[in-house]
């Protein structure tokens, strides 16, 4: 695998940082998360009630986003904890990836300029909401705010109603892949030149960069595109239409006259001017789809060359034959949560496809492997660190 032998130290929490290193872990890197029960990753407690039986080990979301990784528990509020992180950088890591708020790493003395002194060719990524500079950099934020500020909420929903996010927090799903790309490019650069890098990435800027077309349209024409339901500026019919059954839908996006004629043939009617009255076009298509089953109709339309597909529920994703063919779902037993359906990324390399082989780590599960094997501490020293609440 491509990153076999690569050593990655990860600090931070949530989705945006950990998902970035998941790409590396899936492709062979050894990723060690530095965590502490004193200030746990909020994903370890998100969605859990007070009486959840497994405490910090009981969060499926944390588990699912962190496969193939290891965990060392080090309390960064203690000087010895920080010192051990510095030793891991100096003696072990190729890459440091962190997504704390700006200034947090500096408070610990772990900012890039300090770490580079320990490891001149270090590749380090710092990915937070707004980036490391600027007047609002310390604004504490999560993906919910990132999605709103970057413009995705405004663009999602019906023109006559409040905006929605796209489900999830989109800067949390967008930005990690940008972090992983920047890291891979920096590693290629290091491989060719021996030079390290620091990557200061803003999750919001990754969102705005994705929406380059939006910015250019505003700057060039003064236009502020609005949310438009499922209506498309150039394509019709382009919508989500009801099918037989409760909450069953088909998405159809016709891109050409040829596809339109094929759809009309399937509907058993003459083609009409589909752009003249888009509401009427949608109503006529919807009246027809409502008589059909979503998947069967999608298969039939695809056979005729019409882009169409069922709106898939989470249950259907787990049974999707194409995803199964891709090996998207990887079932691994988690020691506390049992059998979990982990997910591979969207890329398959022909000679070196990624592999998921270990569930997410328990907090501090690899203290002996990391503090003992990598840093040479003996069992007694590790026990003392634990008793002193340094390794906790």
């Amino acid at each position, binding site marked *: 695998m491509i990153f076999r032998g690569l050593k990655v130290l990860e600090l931070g929490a949530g989705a945006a940082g950990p998902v970035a290193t998941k790409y590396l872990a899936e492709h062979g890197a050894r990723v060690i998360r530095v965590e502490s029960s004193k200030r746990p990753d909020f994903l370890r407690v998100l969605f859990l009630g007070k009486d959840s039986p497994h405490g910090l080990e009981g969060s*499926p979301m944390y588990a*699912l986003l962190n496969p193939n990784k290891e965990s060392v528990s080090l309390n960064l509020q203690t000087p010895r904890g920080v010192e051990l992180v510095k030793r891991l950088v100096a003696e072990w890591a190729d890459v440091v990836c962190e997504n704390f708020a700006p200034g947090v790493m500096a408070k610990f003395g772990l900012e890039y300029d300090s770490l580079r002194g320990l490891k001149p060719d270090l590749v380090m990524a710092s990915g937070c909401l707004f980036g490391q*500079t*600027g*007047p609002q950099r310390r*604004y504490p934020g999560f993906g*919910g*705010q990132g999605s709103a*500020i970057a413009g995705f*909420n405004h*663009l999602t*929903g019906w023109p006559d109603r409040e905006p929605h*996010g796209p*489900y999830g927090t989109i800067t949390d*799903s*967008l930005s990690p892949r940008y972090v*992983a*790309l920047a890291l891979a*490019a920096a*590693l*290629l*650069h290091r491989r060719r030149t021996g030079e390290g*890098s*620091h990557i200061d990435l*803003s999750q919001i*800027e*990754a969102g*705005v960069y*994705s*929406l380059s*077309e*939006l*910015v*250019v349209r505003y*700057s*060039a*024409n003064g236009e*502020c*595109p609005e949310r438009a339901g*499922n209506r*498309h500026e*150039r*394509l019709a019919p382009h*919508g989500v239409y009801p099918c037989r059954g409760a909450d069953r839908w088909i*998405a159809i*996006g016709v891109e050409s006259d040829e596809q339109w004629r094929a759809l009309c043939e399937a509907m058993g009617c003459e083609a009409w001017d589909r752009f003249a009255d888009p509401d009427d076009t949608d109503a006529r298509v919807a009246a027809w789809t409502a008589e059909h089953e979503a998947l069967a109709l999608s298969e039939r339309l*695809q056979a005729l060359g019409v882009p169409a597909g069922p709106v898939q529920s989470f249950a259907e*994703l787990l049974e999707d034959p*194409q995803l199964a*063919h*891709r090996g998207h779902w990887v079932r691994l037993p988690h020691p506390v949560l049992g059998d*979990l*359906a*982990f*997910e591979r990324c*969207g*890329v398959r*390399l*022909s000679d*070196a496809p990624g592999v998921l082989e270990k569930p997410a780590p328990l907090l501090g599960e690899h203290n002996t492997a990391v503090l003992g094997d990598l840093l040479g501490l003996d069992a007694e020293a590790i026990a003392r660190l634990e008793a002193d609440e340094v390794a906790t």
Partner: protein
Amino acid sequence: MLSGHRVLDLCDESGALAGKLLAELGADVIRIEPPGGDRASRRGPYLHDQPGPERSLAWLALQTSKRGVTLDLEQPQGASLFRRLAAGADVVLETARRGALEAIGLGSDALRAEHPRLVWCSITPFGRTGPRADWLAGDLVVVAMGGNLGVTGDPDRPPVRCSMPTAYYHAAPEAALGVAMALLAREDSGRGQGVDVSLQECQLQTLLSGAGQFARSGRAPGRAGGRLGRTREIWAAADGWVTFGLRGGAARIPNLVATVAYMDECGLAPDWLRDYDWAQFNHNELSDPEIARFEQAFGAFFRTRSMRELYEQALARRILLAPCNDAREIVEHPQLRERKLFVTLEYPELGASIEHPDFFARIEPRPARVRGRAPRIGEHNAEVYAELGIGADALEALAGEGVV
């Protein structure tokens, strides 16, 4: 950081951003389009609403930093020129349907056999093999089949998408990542490899493990409008909308306390809320009436204030609240401007200066950045084909035959 690598970019709109990313990381990306221009990618809206392929704002936005040549791959001579370009390239990036490039003798297997160092990246809706490899899908169908659509929107209306193609935005960086990984592997092996990107699979990541959580719990979210789970996420301000989460956890409770203090200073905090014991707050355990009571109190307050005022107070008080920005508000955002996110590119022949988002990360010591405007039709034909030993006369002859 990718300087010294050449990429041949055959992508339609679904992959345009992938080539842009590689170009802005330093690669020499050559966008190949048919003679006369790629009409699908050079689509409207147009600059100042005057139609013309070189005035396409989507093209100007998504093809920055690339060079551009024209080439008719359907003609044998064009296909032959592509093979010669491939000999000097490191990467081919394409979004063709299965079999389309093979039919003109430019399939990845053949080209990779000819040029073993070549990295070949295919971006397709569902991946290059499998039962749905031949299915057609644009953004809407991918978002539907990737699971995000069904849980976005209101319960009383059909599922609804983002009006910009988020499926493409998620796949592009994964494709560029796959290319960078394959180039890294080639440093040791000397061999390129295939990079097979599925838009659908990339789209699943927007659920942040939601389907995997469902596999364990059997509980799936429904469409909940402006809510996230049970609690409201989108709130009306006096002049627009803001996002604010009624969620707890150590990282969030201080912001709820700060919000109530702000309301109290404005004389708009109900007594019960002012006296609330936040130490006991766990949003997972709130009853429906409790949620309704919170939402009534916060919602009534937010409606009395503008988006800007709420955001300014949020910044000052560390409240987790943000405006649902439109394009103007994004471009005017003081933090983004202070970070110099926007770069102005000149289009003298169009009489325009246009702002673009620059690269999304500050990288030292080798910065990535927007390196130039999108190419005009055939802008770099002369210099690129000259490298193949094709001089001005020969190029003119090719143009006469409609090859370039």
